[in-house]
């Protein structure tokens, strides 16, 4: 099923993002390896979610390239792009469930479109995925009938429906209570360990960043570019950059110049 097993899964090359004339971030370069939990972090409004949009193929970069398995995504034909995107699972900030469909129908949609499973097999997968996110038995609820946190978890169940190679999360723990947020982190680690899923997370939740992150990129809104990339724990221990240390310590730390 997986065509190539080379290590770099996603490569971002000289990426510049802009809305019209307004540059959000410029000259981003980083690599996401297969099986990474990659964190996109930075202060509010620095363009984290916009970067995610560029990675999942919703917004075309002004300059630069994004490679999946060494294949240039934005140079590929629309058919090939669709093929690559089919291997994504995306959890949107608001859940983005289809409001006219029940949770079961939401999860069934990609399964029905892209697999040849029978009705009962699909129903089994739905109840399994809902159980994974702690929503067993909620098949016939409409998104408007459940809480925001539950919508988010249902969105995750839908994102995982096709066992994607790459899962993208936009602020997964925002709006979740601490225990649910922790459970979500555990789920992310399990997905990575058991299925080898590559995971890309936009977040500024420090606890999550250190608990799950194996690699990261730090975006800065003043200089409008990335300041560092690497394991967040390592960044905390070794970075000389004031902004990064401030961010990773909730503004309490200072740069250790003797190290």
């Amino acid at each position, binding site marked *: 099923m997986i065509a190539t097993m080379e290590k770099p899964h996603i490569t971002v090359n000289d990426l510049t993002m802009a809305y019209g004339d307004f540059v959000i971030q410029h000259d981003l370069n980083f690599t996401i390896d297969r099986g990474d939990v990659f964190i996109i972090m930075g202060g509010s409004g620095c363009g984290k979610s916009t970067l995610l949009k560029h990675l*999942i*193929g*919703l917004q075309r970069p002004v300059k630069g390239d994004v490679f999946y398995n060494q294949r240039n995504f934005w140079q590929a034909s629309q058919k090939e792009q*669709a*093929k690559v*995107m*089919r291997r*994504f699972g*995306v959890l*949107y*900030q*608001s859940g*983005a*469930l*289809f*409001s006219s469909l029940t949770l079961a129908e939401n999860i069934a*949609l*990609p399964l029905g*479109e*892209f697999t040849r499973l029978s009705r009962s097999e699909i129903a089994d997968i739905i109840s399994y995925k809902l159980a994974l996110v702690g929503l067993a038995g909620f098949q016939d609820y409409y998104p408007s009938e459940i809480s925001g946190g539950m919508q988010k978890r249902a969105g995750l169940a839908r994102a995982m429906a096709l066992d994607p190679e790459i899962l993208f999360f936009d602020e997964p723990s925002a709006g979740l209570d601490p225990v649910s947020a922790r459970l979500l982190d555990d789920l992310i680690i399990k997905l990575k360990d058991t299925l080898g899923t590559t995971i890309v997370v936009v977040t500024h939740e420090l606890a999550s960043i250190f608990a799950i992150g194996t690699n990261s990129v730090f975006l800065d809104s*003043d200089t409008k570019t990335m300041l560092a990339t690497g394991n967040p724990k390592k960044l905390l221990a070794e970075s000389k950059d004031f902004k990064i240390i401030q961010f990773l310590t909730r503004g309490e730390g200072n740069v250790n110049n003797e190290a």
Partner: protein
Amino acid sequence: MNVTAANRQDFSTDVHLERIDADTLVIRLAGSWAQGAIIKPVEEVIRELDELSGLRRVFLQTSQLEKWDSRLPAYLLKIIDYYQAKDVEVDLSGLPEGVQGLLKLARAVPERAGDRRTVKKTSALYEFGKTVLDGLQDAKGLITFIGEAVLAFWALLQGKARFRTVDLVLCIQEAGAEALPIVTLISLLVGLILAFVGAVQLAMFGAQIYIADLVSLGTVREMGALMTAVIMSGRTGAAYAAQLGTMNVNSEIDALKTMGISPMQFLVMPRMLALALMLPLLCLYADFMGILGGALVTISVFDVSLIQYAHEARRIVHVDDFSIGLFKSLVFAVLIATAGCMRGMQCGRSASAVGNAATSAVVNSIVYIVVADSLITLICNELNI
């Protein structure tokens, strides 16, 4: 030395300026600064401060301060900013601790240069140019949308289009059966009006029987299609724009795209198909309702029997006339669905954007309908159909 003092009679608060020596000033604040307080405008104080030159240090102090709310820090912030710009040191230690803390917090993250948006004054020429450019952008969006819709329709013809049959059935129900009551009412009344308008003239020649001709031809060729189209653009076109717009706000359309499902096929096609199937049917129904409305007037007011009316109507209306009306309504259906779905898909990400999308969907579709109707009528006239 007392330089100036606020007029105590007018204000419930007191701002007292006291110059201690050549380069030091003390600003003393007293009284109640809570809601309802009448405060000397800060601009007036700053004007007074303008007259004092050569200052190096300013002490802000409060004595006998009773109550205060956000007005006090906001007031002080203005004074502090004023002196900051002049490089004069401002000492806050004479203020209550709470005020000091809030002022410190307010000044912790300084304004970044270029962050503040200034409203630029624009000339009429600029506005005109912008309108033209926006119009061009709009036209480009329309052409892109039509292109995508044609591709989606092509996929549908090849049997490759992906949408749920349930959605199509629901759309058909909404655009068809549920519109019957309003279509009945409006077309019946339009038939009635046509009959009355014509009857007054025709009765002068004793030619009441020709009311049937007027009403039937007018309804079948023109009014039936036009009225149903206008009703449906307000009913269904606006609904399409609002539905798709809300889905856009909720990132549902993004979710479809990243799932590899084309929103054009999945959301737009069922709606377009439903309207294209239902509008001609509604139009046919409206035609008969219009003729019936005319009959009601003619029979009850102008002394023509139902048989005579029906006979006259059958004599004058041909299948060609029905075909023209139905063809028009098919064209209108495509136009309404295009305007509605396009505005919905292009909708911005806020509540007001959804409202704007619904409004412009209706406005656009009515304009499209009338323009298309004139063109078709002109062509029919040229071809003598």
